């Protein structure tokens, strides 16, 4: 009986699919100022494709991730998206926000899912149901993290934030403020970090003049590291009273900050300490391909995105038939918006109307360039 069922279901998948290969375009910034990030996002997607193909492909057919370079350029991104929507079933990207804003309206107009797995809920939700958010709303997910961080220290009465005005970051700072308010911690006048800042001494002096007990850094990795170095050089000693936000948790933080980061806390979705066979293998292969570095923040996002596409195609019986393009695009959109028990690389999660409902987040403490888990926050 089991054999019959297996034969029928296998045969069903085989005969329905009309494509010889699934092609998934990935609109990514492979050149330009964030090419380094684009590279490891692409690596994650390609790695997933290799793994899927080695295990028999999607519904029996191999998958190919087609890199589409948008070069961090909205002009190029829009033309590339216009090409992609012509006949693609589903896509991934774009990356990052300016290209998302220029290109995603094209995907929406043509009713094609393009998974934007690196941006915040506030951007992704503008394009529902033709994308999903990889993160819960900022005002829901960040306050518990900041509360958990601040509650560790009874002496924390006043906190100052350094905020770089880029995309969703001021909104993330607002979410931190909400948490501080809920704990009756006084938030001092925020220090704006200009996008083109090269020296940080004056900014740090202005912050220290307010005599804060804690510091939250909402700026890019390099700037965060330099501010921490400045704080330390001016006598700041309570290093775990510094919290770095997730977007700054990448290679430049560690390469620039070095040993001065010891004790600093950081929050993120990525937990290198989790162990499962897939994630362990991913870490090893990532390190091999990246000079021994462990996966950076966001590294698994497009790995998971491709698996989510695989699951949607297989579970909804999508065939890849160009005549059914509109209908099958809708099937994928409906499926991924409410996928349940999705087996991600690090953990399983559910989606409700395009928003993840139960992804864990973590607070780490940095010691000798490595992150040590302080606590998990759900």
């Amino acid at each position: 009986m089991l054999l019959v069922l297996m034969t029928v279901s296998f045969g069903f998948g085989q005969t329905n699919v009309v494509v010889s290969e699934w092609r998934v375009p990935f609109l990514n910034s492979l050149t330009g100022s964030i090419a380094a990030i684009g590279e490891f996002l692409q690596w994650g997607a390609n790695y997933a494709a290799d793994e899927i193909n080695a295990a028999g492909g999607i519904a029996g057919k191999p998958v190919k991730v087609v890199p589409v370079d948008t070069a961090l350029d909205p002009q190029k991104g829009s033309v590339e998206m216009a090409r992609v929507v012509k006949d693609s079933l589903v896509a991934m990207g774009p990356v990052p926000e300016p290209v998302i804003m220029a290109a995603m309206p094209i995907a929406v107009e043509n009713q094609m899912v393009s998974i934007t797995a690196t941006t915040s809920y506030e951007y992704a939700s503008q394009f529902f149901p033709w994308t999903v958010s990889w993160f819960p709303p900022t005002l829901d997910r960040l306050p518990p993290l900041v509360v958990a961080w601040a509650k560790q220290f009874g002496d924390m009465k006043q906190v100052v934030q350094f905020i770089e005005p880029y995309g969703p970051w001021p909104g993330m700072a607002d979410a931190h403020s909400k948490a501080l308010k809920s704990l009756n911690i006084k938030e001092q006048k925020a220090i704006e970090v200009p996008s083109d800042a090269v020296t940080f001494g004056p900014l740090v002096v202005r912050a220290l003049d307010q005599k804060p007990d804690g510091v939250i850094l909402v700026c890019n990795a390099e700037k965060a590291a330099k501010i921490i170095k400045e704080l330390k050089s001016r006598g700041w000693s309570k290093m775990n009273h510094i919290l770095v936000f997730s977007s700054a948790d990448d290679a430049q933080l560690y390469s620039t900050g070095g040993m001065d980061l010891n004790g600093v806390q950081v929050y993120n979705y990525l937990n290198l300490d989790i162990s499962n066979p897939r994630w362990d293998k991913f870490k090893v292969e990532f390190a091999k391909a990246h000079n021994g570095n462990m996966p950076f923040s966001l590294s698994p996002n497009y790995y998971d995105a491709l698996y989510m596409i695989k699951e949607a195609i297989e579970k909804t019986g999508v065939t890849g038939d160009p005549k059914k393009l509109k209908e099958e695009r809708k099937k994928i959109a409906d499926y991924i918006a409410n996928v349940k028990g999705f087996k991600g690389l690090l953990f399983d999660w559910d989606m409700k109307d395009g928003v993840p409902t139960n992804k864990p987040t973590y607070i780490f403490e940095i010691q000798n360039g490595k992150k040590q888990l302080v606590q998990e926050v759900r």
Partner: protein
Amino acid sequence: MPLSLYYYLSIAAVNILMSWALYVPYRVTQLHFITIANMMISGYLAGYLVLHVHVPFVWALLIGFAVGGIIGYVVSLFIGDAPTFAVVIVGFTFIYITRTVVENLSIVGGTMGMFGLPNIGGNPVAHRWIILGILYGLVVLCGFLIHRFDHSSIGRAASAIFVDKELASSLGIDIKKLGMLVQTFSCTLAGGVGVLYGFIYKSFHLDFFGFALIGVYMTVLFVGGYSTQWGPLLAAPILYGVPLFFPPAVQSWRIVIYGVMLILVLVLKPEGFITRKSVYSIGLALSRKRGKVIRS
């Protein structure tokens, strides 16, 4: 019309118009980068008016032109006859100031940007045709105006200023007045184009108006040729279009190819591909041909 062709044509038109917005002041040696700030100001203002005040698009567009022109005129009162680098610095400063203001204005979306601009004409197809119609209408109109300008006594006065300001002054040319005229024209144009630029994407983000745009328009101007209006007209679609047709394997070398092309042009043809001489020669050849046809 294929969607990718629409985006290609519309952005090529934006690049032609914005390169002309740089070309016209450069006729009197001024690199007027304030035009990028004008795009931003008028674009965001029109977006706000359409989205939140429900002003019809046509009015928002006209207000965009007007605001660009007013800013250009007021600024030109101070820098109408300023040297090249002073004008460049004013332009950069304006871009910084405008970015900072927009970053801190939550009513236009701040750092997040402005989403969900409506379709003009009620549906996407009409929207695309209207945008293309306006853009290419502007290309024709501005092309005609710039052509008339280049072939008028004012254009010749601009050429004299380009060669030697003091000589031009001694010939009785009012350098400041002419500078004010070209600056106001380019800012007016940039204001309107900024509005259309955002409506192509149906959104606004600060990084749509980044310093990269200066690089794009400068490349178009100097590779195409800064001494005639035809240079930007031909270079904008080619420079924007060629990389789109690179095979994927070559895509990552795009910047290198651009760079090599720029260096080659600067070394081999410093005036750019289309020069006045080449325009004159083509014009002459065409008129001879026309003459032969008439005689026969």
